[in-house]
């Protein structure tokens, strides 16, 4: 009931101002995710998150009437701990569009551009100095499912070279201004914390987990 009310409230606010920013909302059990809050996985393990950082790029909005595509090829940095990064595209009339496709991560040209300013700033903690390139998605936290003393997990998912190119194209319908990222689905369907809790470089596991990301957005 609470969930339905929450979603209804968001839609109501959106209907009052259809010029709103596009916003990313990570969720767990259909509620906005909070850092350091302890959740339960579907296997009844505890899980909490300390870091959630994401790169988005190459947005393509599809017009409701003409079907024309409006492209915005910019790099967007999202950090759950910094509310100033949660919404973007202030000047876009989102009610004109039926859907948006975007890239979760950076394509190869952005990875090798040598750009180190603004969203590319290494201070954001997404830059790999030893192997030029960026992390697409950084998720860190703790879970009782992780069989180590610290119970910590770290997923630095990135890499743009074949065969481990990890950037993913994602398409969602635009019913409102919100794009939801279902982490519960990601951790129940794509990540087995007992077996895999530490990815720090481009590799097969990073590739496989990234492939499951597209179904976690709606």
């Amino acid at each position, binding site marked *: 009931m609470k969930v339905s009310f929450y979603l209804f409230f968001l839609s109501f606010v959106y209907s009052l101002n259809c010029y709103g920013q596009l916003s990313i909302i990570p969720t767990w059990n259909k509620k906005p995710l909070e850092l350091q809050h302890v959740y339960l996985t579907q296997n009844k393990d505890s899980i909490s998150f300390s870091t959630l950082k994401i790169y988005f790029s190459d947005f393509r909005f599809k017009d409701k009437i003409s079907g024309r595509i409006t492209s915005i090829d910019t790099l967007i940095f999202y950090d759950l701990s910094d509310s100033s990064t949660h919404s973007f595209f202030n000047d876009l009339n989102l009610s004109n569009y039926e859907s948006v496709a975007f890239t979760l991560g950076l394509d190869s040209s952005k990875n090798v551009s040598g750009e180190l*300013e603004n969203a590319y700033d*290494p201070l954001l903690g997404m830059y790999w*100095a*030893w*192997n030029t390139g960026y992390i697409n998605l950084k998720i860190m936290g703790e879970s009782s499912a992780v069989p180590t003393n610290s119970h910590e997990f770290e997923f630095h998912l990135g890499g743009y070279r074949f065969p*481990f190119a990890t950037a993913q194209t994602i398409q969602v319908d635009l019913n409102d201004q919100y794009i939801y990222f279902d982490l519960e689905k990601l951790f129940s369907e794509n990540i087995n914390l007992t077996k895999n809790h530490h990815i720090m470089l481009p590799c097969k596991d990073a590739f496989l987990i990234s492939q499951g990301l597209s179904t976690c957005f709606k």
Partner: protein
Amino acid sequence: MNSSSFLFICFFGFSILAFTLKKVIPHPFYQPKEWPKPTYNFKGNPLDYEKFELGRALFYDPILSLDSSISCASCHLQFTAFAHVDHKISHGIEGRIGKRNAPGLANLAWRKLFHWDGGVLNLNAQAINPITHVDEMDMALDSLMHRLDRSPIYSAAFKRTFGTDDIRPFHLVKALAQFTVALISENSKYDKVKRGEDGLEFTDQEKKGLSLFNNFCSSCHKPPFFASDDYKSNGLPIDTELLDFGRMTITGNKRDSLLFMVPTLRNIEYSFPYMHDGRISKLKDVIKHYTLLDYSNPLLSKELRKNPVKLSENEQKDLLAFLKTLTDKTFLFDERFKYSIIK
């Protein structure tokens, strides 16, 4: 015109002249004749003499390391071709030992890939690696930015050169690149003979060595840089303690196992020890290494397998004599690249 007006006009004129003269101090980078165009993106970091001087001071300043004990120059000494002479493996703060010998720095504006494994794709980003690497300077970038901001000298210098009150990593690495991009070595005996300068000629032994070089070495160590952006196996077996697999570490591809950068041979006489892990200390032994290789080794570079290096003792000496013609003392002792501080 009264005398006070005349003095004012003179003062004004000299002020403009002084300002103009300050502006025209040339950045040391230049395009050598008959060399290809540089790969460095100068549009993203236009040459600026004041930024060069800032980068030069930073290169020599241990402020970049966690405990302020080592600078870039600690492992890249000018008089040894900006390599880490006399150390097999370069060491960072607190004597921490890495896995590789710091390579020489020269003609970097023409390189596409950096480091022994080619993991870094542009010169700007290169500096971030040694600054943050735990076995080198081990300095977190955010802490370093705070440190530079708090330094009256550097905060003023970045304000003056980049017009910023908020020093970011891209300011730092661009300043450093203004210095490293200027490290051009092209005044060796080889270069002068090739250009017909100073009436210089190769000796008979050097001529024989050049012929051998062209036959056995130049397909990988390509003039005018005597290097390439290719990654090759020269038959060195794995060091079972260091376990450094080179290029494979970057690509994750097993075919890249034990491939390493083809380094420049310019100033090779002064950049000992040799190879990615400094395991060979004398240049004559590097040449001997190639003559003793197992050429049936399928992992060996195709250039070596196709054309095994067969050299008599005398031919090895001839090749060594030629390699010494690549020494560029103008570069090794260039005043513009020496230790400096921001004034």
